[in-house]
């Protein structure tokens, strides 16, 4: 009983903070807003830790909080499922959220929307916790959409910026496309399982494994599990930004940096990964769905990585890196290595939140200039940000012993062992991506922290300085991407000539340090229980007969230390290292080479620069098409046919009759008499002929 109160406390404490800071945002002083929200999230974190210990002791929980709705034979409940998977997510969410809350005190200190911001991020924490703690699909969908709402509110936090309010609407709508599939998947589950409760659905899953449904007519039956899993995964593609529903994530960088770290890197975007892992008993029953998952993940991992290489906005580099890493997690799911996906989700949450918050620290230091071409040599001025960024970057590229190494290397090995159709392509994609990841990560790292100090010059039109050629090419880029350009125009404050960057206050650097620690060591510490122990027993289901990936992976594993030392002899390590060296050579040693490459491969650059034309396509075909269709139906259908022909046509018909009738109402008595006589004559004729 006591534990159940604690479960309730975890989501409600942040909600309480959000309500206080939100409803009273005009009344209370700033310190009240941040104290009450930070206290709420801290309580949630501590409670999560207590629950974690309790779960380790073997106490899981699955039960309702209240009955939301009954209808017919169906019951919908709000309830909690507390198991190892849930507590892992709870700890990650509350810890990163706590770090971001503290960081926000420094990042948003000059913003008039300070209290509102704290309210939103606490509301987000509540929504995300409701999502991960749910024991049924209805509440999952509630949390799913609620985090989408808060994401919408936060991307558009600076609501006077045209780019921000475009980006938040785009994010919401693209997510709705995913949710469209998601709700249909939930509908199929309710229709065939008769319940939305996880445990009951999973219990019935194997019995329905062979069920087919005539989705495309009676002749062509589709396996129920395949349909359900692909529809659910479409939801995950929206939330976790998988190609082709990834388009909203880069634009979401319009939001303040703390939420980019919390929502668009560490937690919300991983909801799709979590959901698929949670649904492992269903996905295990459909190889078709797993193939679909692995191929989509592989495409995302590789092709989004390429885009990171050419970005110049510090946040967008990290954003594309997030897309690529989400692709990695998805690939792991497709390879039936669900626990590896969750493991990477966790390590990624730490090092990617770190990288984003460090980027934010750089942005503060640079007085809100986000262009990495205006930086350089910052390590002298921002030592804490520099070191923590280095830790984050090393973790990201998979340097042995760092957190990212353990999770990423496990994914690559799992894919190598997988026999699901599409795994060959996925293996190639994740291997190639190792090099690309190292290249863009260290390109950014070198351009920001090393080399020549280029700040304080942009404003002075420094035509003479070395990166002239690069920035000139960038100007051309701006011309054909006005949207991006506007974003820049808003942000372009920058340092005045002669002004130096400065290290940020402790509320900013403390979270960096606290996130750098797990980014370095958490993989080493937890790989054994999470992947090869029985930590996830009962929470994640793998059919080890059909998909023996995890079993084989366990055979190869001889401890975390051995894994790291062994890695030094593998291709993965050398690919990453060559990526770093390439980045160093191209951007530190010979900056003329990237320029030459760009000139030589103009078409390829244009393709990348336009992000493979996804945005343009959506803008023209979907947005434009919908407006055209709407206008056609309105002017043609409603105004033209229905009102124009039918309604007004009826009116014209009536008035035509009226005109005709007017002939008989002349006011002359002899006309009436004559008409009457004709009438009598007609009637008499009828009567006579009838008789």
């Amino acid at each position, binding site marked *: 009983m006591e534990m159940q109160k604690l479960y309730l406390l975890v989501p409600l404490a942040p909600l309480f903070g959000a309500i206080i800071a939100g409803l009273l945002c005009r009344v209370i002083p700033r310190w009240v807003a941040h104290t009450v929200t930070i206290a709420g999230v801290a309580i949630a974190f501590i409670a999560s830790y207590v629950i974690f210990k309790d779960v380790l002791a073997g106490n899981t929980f699955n039960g309702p909080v*209240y*009955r*939301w*709705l*009954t*209808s*017919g*034979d*169906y019951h919908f409940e709000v309830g909690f499922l507390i198991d190892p998977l849930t507590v892992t997510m709870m700890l990650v969410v509350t810890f990163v959220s706590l770090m971001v809350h503290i960081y926000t005190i420094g990042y948003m200190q000059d913003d008039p929307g300070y209290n509102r911001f704290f309210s939103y991020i606490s509301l987000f924490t509540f929504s995300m916790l409701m999502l991960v703690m749910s024991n049924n699909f*209805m509440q999952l*969908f*509630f949390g799913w*959409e*609620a985090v989408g*709402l808060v994401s919408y*509110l936060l991307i*558009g936090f600076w*609501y*006077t910026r*045209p780019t921000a*309010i*475009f980006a938040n*609407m785009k994010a*919401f*709508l693209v997510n*709705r*496309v995913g*949710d*469209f599939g998601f*709700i*249909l998947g*939930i*509908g*199929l589950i*309710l*229709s065939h399982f008769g319940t939305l409760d996880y445990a009951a659905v999973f219990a019935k899953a194997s019995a329905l494994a062979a069920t087919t*449904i005539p*989705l495309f007519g009676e002749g062509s039956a589709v396996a129920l599990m395949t349909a359900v899993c692909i529809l659910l995964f479409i939801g995950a593609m929206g939330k976790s930004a998988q190609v082709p529903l990834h388009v909203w994530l880069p634009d979401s960088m319009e939001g303040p940096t703390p939420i980019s770290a919390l929502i668009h890197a560490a937690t919300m975007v991983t909801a799709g990964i979590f959901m698929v892992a949670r649904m492992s008993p269903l996905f295990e029953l459909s190889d078709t769905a797993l193939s679909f998952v692995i191929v989509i993940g592989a495409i995302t991992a590789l092709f989004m990585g390429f885009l990171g290489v050419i970005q110049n906005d510090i946040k967008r580099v990290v954003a594309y890196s997030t897309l690529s890493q989400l692709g990695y997690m998805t690939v792991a799911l497709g390879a039936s290595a669900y626990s590896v996906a969750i493991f990477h989700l966790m390590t990624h949450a730490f090092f990617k939140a770190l990288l984003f918050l460090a980027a934010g620290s750089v942005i503060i230091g640079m007085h809100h200039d986000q262009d990495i071409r205006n930086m350089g040599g910052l390590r002298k001025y921002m030592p804490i940000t520099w070191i923590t960024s280095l830790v984050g970057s090393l973790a990201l590229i998979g340097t042995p012993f760092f957190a990212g190494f353990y999770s990423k290397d496990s994914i690559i090995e799992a894919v190598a062992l997988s026999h699901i159709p599409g795994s060959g392509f996925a293996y190639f994609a994740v291997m190639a991506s190792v090099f690309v990841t190292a290249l863009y990560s260290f390109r950014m790292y070198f351009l920001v922290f090393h080399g020549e100090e280029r700040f304080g010059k942009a404003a002075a039109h420094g035509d003479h300085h070395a990166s002239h050629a690069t920035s000139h090419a960038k100007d051309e880029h701006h011309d054909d991407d006005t949207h991006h350009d506007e974003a820049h125009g808003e942000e372009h404050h920058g340092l005045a000539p002669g002004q130096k960057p400065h290290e940020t206050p402790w509320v900013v650097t403390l979270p960096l340090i606290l996130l750098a620690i797990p980014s370095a060591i958490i993989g080493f510490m937890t790989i054994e229980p999470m992947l090869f122990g029985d930590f996830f027993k009962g929470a994640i289901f793998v059919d080890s007969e059909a998909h023996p990936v995890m079993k084989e992976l366990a055979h190869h594993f001889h401890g975390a230390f051995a894994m790291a030392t062994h890695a030094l002899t593998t291709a993965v390590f050398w690919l990453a290292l060559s990526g770093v060296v390439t980045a160093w050579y191209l951007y530190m040693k010979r900056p003329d080479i990237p320029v030459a490459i760009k000139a030589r491969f103009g078409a390829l650059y244009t393709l990348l620069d336009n992000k493979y034309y996804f945005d343009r396509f959506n803008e023209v075909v979907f947005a434009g098409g*919908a*407006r055209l*269709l*709407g*206008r056609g*139906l*309105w002017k043609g*259908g*409603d105004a033209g046919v*229905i*009102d124009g022909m*039918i*309604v007004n046509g009826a009116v014209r018909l009536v008035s035509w009759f009226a005109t005709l009738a007017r002939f008989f109402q002349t006011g002359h008595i002899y006309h009436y008499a004559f008409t009457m006589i004709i009438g009598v004559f007609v009637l008499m004729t009828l009567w006579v002929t009838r008789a």
Partner: protein
Amino acid sequence: MLATPLLSLAIWVPILAGFAVLATGADRNAPLARMLALLGAVAGLLVTIPLYTGFDLNTPAMQFVELHSWIPRFNVNYHLGVDGISVLFVLLNSFITVTVILAGWQVIDSRVAQYNAGFLIMSGLLNGIFSSLDGVLFYVFFEASLIPLYLIIGIWGGSNRVYAAFKFFLFTLMGSLLFLIALLYLFIESGGSFSILDWHKLPLGLTAQTWLFLAFLVAFAVKVPMWPVHTWLPDAHVEAPTGGSIVLAAIALKLGAYGFLRFSLPIAPDASHELSGLVIALSLIAIIYIGFVALVQEDMKKLVAYSSIAHMGFVTLGFFMFSALGVEGALVQMISHGFVSGAMFFAIGVMYDRAHSRQIADYGGVVNSMPKFAAFFMLFAMANAGLPATSGFVGEFMVILAAVDYNFWVAFAAATTMIVGAAYTLWMYKRVVFGAVANHHVAELTDINGREFLIFVLFAAGALGMGLYPQPFTEVMHSSVNELLRHVALSKIQ
């Protein structure tokens, strides 16, 4: 029979209060008229509360029944009663009346007494519709309720109000005539009874059922409104004053849908099954076609009016899948739409009162001058887009889930509203509320006052309460909906 005739009170308290308000005279005693109207509306709401608290959840039968002879010669009775399907609409209507009286408080300053009296009388008549169990009584209330709304649009409406009022009146009258013929046919067939409950048990051949169903369909489709007889609604909304729009959207649109459940389904069950494909097709057209039309509207009221039609498409879709989840989802959608569209029209009215424009293009950056308003408007825009935790989600969720069970592709078509509905609502919100201050009219806007705040809070309580905990709403429906579905599943052909 109960000691207190609660349903009569629900009908006659507002009507008598309306006449009392009229007696205060034109504009000589405007403050008194307003005060009296509010008292009447609140009293009207209070007398309906026992209908919920005293409601027996375990019986599908009519409750709070009152039966008195009215015109003995034709066996016409003053026969009232509510079941789980109708009782919530009496409550919703009485609730909406309070908000409407408050909404016109500082806005209407000509013919104040008549305006308020019109709404009070209409409120009583609408309660009469939802509680009538006699065909003639129903028809009298049904037709009489047109008059106040017609007058409200025609007198306090916008510049093109006469055209809109006529269009509204003629469309609905056309449907009503067929409805009257159907009632007379049933009177004759049943051997001289106007009791709706008798008609439910009346055996009828398929041909007779089909004709009756079509007559009902025309009458109710106009009211709902269903595609293609919906074009009167955007015009009526655009011209109606804010209060008129609120009642029109929140209550008047529900009459047609209620008619399907009270007349079409139980009286002509076989024809309902035969022709369900037609109704479902029309519903899906309403959802998709109207959704796209809403997307390109330039007038905010028209946009919300079109979105109402699309939302009502969910209601008719839910009814004709003949599952408990579908029918209850549709009923939930009807009540939710009362809160959400009422609030949306009120929000537009708040802006209109200040800037005298409903054109989206005339706004931009409203959040800068009206932050409190923007927060409420966001809540209701999200509810309109069906966000979970708001009432807008519950009905859509239930109907979509029921539709997957019925036919996957019907659900697929219906679920497109998740995308299109969000698109038209949020695109409007973005252009009106977000952004930098667009012009000096927007800069001069003042944020909502206490009265407007109170109205928003009332609507928000409804929308959020129902979204977070819909069980108290649906548990009222269960017995009656299950009984209805049992009844509809049995053939009447003998």
